[in-house]
């Protein structure tokens, strides 16, 4: 018998027998595994067209129209997919100089990005320049450590967003890099940068303890790693926090051979990933969930 038929029959059974308190939700236990796919970009920097054939480094690589078909194929394979961007959407080609980010946001909307965080270059036309392009974005911006009070962006970002995919609750929160010294004060105006580690501790408490998320993702534009260990990076954020399953990073245009596994404050593995820049790569992380299985002593198996 086909599984779907079986579930339909079973549903009828539920209605007939009518046992109180048992919703259809309970039947999800019949599925043994669930799979959540996270796909992501960072630092695309207005690279809409592929690199030209004569480019010395990236000839014929990249391009939004190709990324679109890849994303569509992944969504077809697994509808429980989230598409995220870790900032620096703006600046890098004349598309930005001519249209101020309008086309970037419109295309990301067409590709059905679920959420993005804000990079330092997204302030390049000033905070008003970012605000004025928001009508072209059909996706939300998340930033937990930028306080936009008294700026045009006030109330237009959220600290986090929760997605429910196949019954799995996924909390995604955003982090931005220190703007002072990177962005002209005239551009970021009264935006306040808050400590990413303290904010992450708040975020994970809210998402894990209060909201009961099954998966917590940090969408960061802090940068992968710095020579100066005091500068907050994705790697030292991973070490200094807990309950984050995945940090998707940006800013440093880091090409990683594979996602980095870092032990967090609880000694549990956290993944840190970044996929370079300019839409050259798409990152993909698949999370598998099993029902009724005692979490094995050796924890989660990671294949990267």
């Amino acid at each position: 018998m086909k599984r779907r038929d079986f579930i339909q029959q079973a549903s009828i059974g539920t209605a007939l027998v009518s046992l109180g308190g048992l919703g259809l939700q309970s039947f999800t236990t019949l599925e043994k595994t669930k799979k959540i796919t996270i796909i992501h970009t960072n630092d695309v920097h207005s690279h809409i067209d592929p690199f030209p054939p004569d480019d010395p480094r990236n000839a014929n690589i990249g391009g939004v129209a190709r990324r679109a078909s890849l994303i569509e194929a992944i969504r077809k394979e697994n509808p429980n997919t989230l598409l995220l961007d870790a900032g620096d959407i703006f600046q890098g080609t004349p598309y930005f100089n001519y249209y101020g980010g309008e086309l970037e946001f419109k295309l990301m909307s067409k590709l059905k990005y679920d959420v993005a965080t804000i990079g330092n270059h997204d302030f390049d036309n000033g905070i008003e320049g970012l605000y004025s392009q928001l009508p072209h974005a059909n996706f939300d911006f998340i930033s937990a450590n930028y306080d936009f009070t008294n700026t045009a962006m006030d109330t237009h970002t959220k600290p986090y967003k929760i997605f429910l995919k196949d019954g799995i609750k996924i909390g995604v929160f955003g982090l931005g890099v220190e703007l002072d010294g990177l962005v002209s004060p005239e551009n970021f105006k009264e935006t306040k940068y808050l400590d990413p580690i303290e904010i992450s501790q708040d975020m994970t408490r809210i998402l894990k303890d209060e909201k009961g998320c099954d998966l917590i993702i940090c969408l960061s534009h802090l940068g992968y790693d710095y020579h100066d260990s005091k500068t907050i990076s994705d790697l030292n954020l991973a070490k200094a926090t807990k309950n984050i399953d995945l940090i998707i990073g940006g800013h440093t245009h880091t090409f990683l051979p594979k996602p980095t596994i870092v032990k967090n404050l609880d000694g549990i593995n956290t993944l840190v990933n970044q996929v370079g820049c300019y839409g050259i790569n798409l990152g993909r992380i698949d999370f598998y969930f099993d029902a009724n299985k005692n979490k094995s002593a050796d924890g989660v198996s990671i294949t990267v």
Partner: protein
Amino acid sequence: MRFTHLIYLLYFLVFLNCKKDKFELTKIEGHQIQITDTLKTDQSIEDYVKPYRDHIQKDLDSVLAYASNTYSKTDSKLNTAIGNFMADVAYEQANPVFLKRSGHNIDMVLLNFGGIRSILPKGKISKGTAFKLMPFENSIVVAAIKGTQVNQLVDYLVKAKTAHPISKLQIIINTDGQLVDAKINGKNIDPNKTYYVATNDYLYEGGDHMTFFKPSDSLYRLNYKIRNTLIDYFMKVDTVNPVQDNRFIQIK
């Protein structure tokens, strides 16, 4: 009655699992997929981008001026025609803006050799030429610094012996590479005087180890991109024919 049995079995399972029907994360897999030309191009996206691309291309290709020759930053040492051109254009375009805003004139300009990103080829000059020369978004800033700091700036240039673009500043070094004379607008540098030095925001922040701009008495951000100084200049002239001159020379 097979179905009934199945349903009973189902309820049995549900009850059994009632307390622990929580899904636990068990496995994570990570991949990276390069966006190559083997991927299909989504035609609807391509069609959507095309009018934007065509408009930009048409605008970038429109001819603004002509270059008498081909100029490269490696044409000569210490000062080059193309570097002199960029620094002089920065002065010519930015000084009226600065004067209007501050009531002062720019005393000198310093840009960086590395900031000249392409050659200026002989023939048609378009907006695209300006984008190639200066693909970055750096803008002109004017820092009010002491003569002592200007002397540090001169020392930096003398030591570097690189054709960093300068305007209104003249430097002469001897055969040993030591400073013989440095003048701004034909006058000796007064250590106690405040000079208004135009540069770009990258260098002001210490780029290329140019650490002499800070501390500055005041800083004026003109919101005028280096690239736009070039585009505006190309739009007002017919022909561009810069020359190497004596603004930074070594006595032989």
